[in-house]
């Protein structure tokens, strides 16, 4: 494509199939303790798409 560059991102639809193991950190636990967000939580399942 000449006009658009697409970054590599995790496919949310595929993650609905192979995600959900629950081994990841709870959102609030690591640093903030006041403003929840999930975006910066790494996935613990390195094999998942």
């Amino acid at each position: 494509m000449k006009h658009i560059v697409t970054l590599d991102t995790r496919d949310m639809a595929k993650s609905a199939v192979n995600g959900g193991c629950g081994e990841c950190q709870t959102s609030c636990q690591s640093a903030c303790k006041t403003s929840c967000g999930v975006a910066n939580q790494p996935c613990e399942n390195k094999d998942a798409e």
Partner: protein
Amino acid sequence: MIHQYILNGYHIILDVNSGSIHVTDPLAYEAIRLIDAGKTPEEAGRELLAGFADRGVTEQEVQESLADVEELRRSGKLFSEETFADKAFDLKKRNTVIKALCLLVAHTCNLNCSYCFAAQGNFHGQHGLMSFETGKRALDFLVEHSGLRRNLEVDFFGGEPLMNFQVCKDLVAYARSIEKEKKKNFRFTLTTNGVGITDEVIEWANRECHNVVLSLDGRKEVNDRFRKDYAGNGSYDRIVPKFQEFVRRRGGQGYYMRGTFTHFNTDFTEDIFHMADDLGFAELSMEPVVADPDSPSALTREDLPVIFEQYEILARDMLRREREGKPITFYHYMLDLEHGPCIYKRISGCGSGTEYLAVTASGDLYPCHQFVNDPEYRMGDIWEGVTRTDLRDSFKLCNVYSRPECADCWAKLYCAGGCAANAYHATGDIHGTYETGCEIFKKRIECALMIKVAQAMEGRQEKES
């Protein structure tokens, strides 16, 4: 649903449901806006030709950009459909597995910070220290209710947890003694104001704690405005050298310098840069204060434009630092686009009241540390377990799909519905929305995505050159 914005010269498109992120030229950016507004490709083409005539854009370029848009739409990376709502409501039926506890090992503190949400550590209740027996039972409770989850997180919190250091040490030793047999992996976090840091604490925490959160608000005058001892003396001079030694011996990893900004320092990037440039810290977190709206330190709607500008300044400066080989990490700008959370994580909320609970010194259970000692939110205790299953069910549905305001929000799969405690304090309902917090969150995500875009585009330029 899409979200499009221009930041730092980049034209950025987020396709909300697929999670795809695109960088466009101005022509494709406008093409996407027109198609999203309901124009047909023919109508959009005519408007683009007219709108970009002064820039010498040709019919062929317009058609190419529209073809790019169509290709992304067909591949499910643009204007993708929402297919996750049913999964969110299924969450109410999910098994309740607990995987994280916040242990309030000390309901007391050696600082007297006036903005403390925990009321100087006693959470508006009695001062007290958690006994080893209570803490041990809390760890057993966690193991018993963790199902097949292997990774279990425990945060030593307070008050000031180092005022009960011996119990912290004993609890870690106990956890290590059972984790192999129980097939668990305990990850401990210590959150401390720094006053009680000693060589022994450093040696212990750097051996046993997966993460340490070190409270410092930044510049001396900013830190010492609130972070004072009971005699009224600021803590900066006492804690900074300890934090520096702590982090140095930790190898500069697995820590956050965690500050709070208030109405009095909306220029908080100065505090972040002070911690980075003057004090040598590279892992940084700076949070908006949680305060009663009537408090002088509370952030106001009028503060928002200043705060937004600060987040942009920070994002641009982080890119500069990276180019110069001296990067810093800002907690809220850490995005892993390829290996970030799955959709279940993104729709299930923060986990408070369900997979994450706070345990008081006396063993009572609360949905999280911010609800402690609110009698309406006492969920049970570590001996009887969760007895307020109605509360647990209510928290299970505390996610983006339970909040009408979130339905049309482009950031919903990045925030998962936000903080239940903030919502409660702002609206009286855990399913409400804390609008100021939402605005701040969205700005942070825009900046974080821009950083990813800039890194990707700069990487492409390097390859091409």
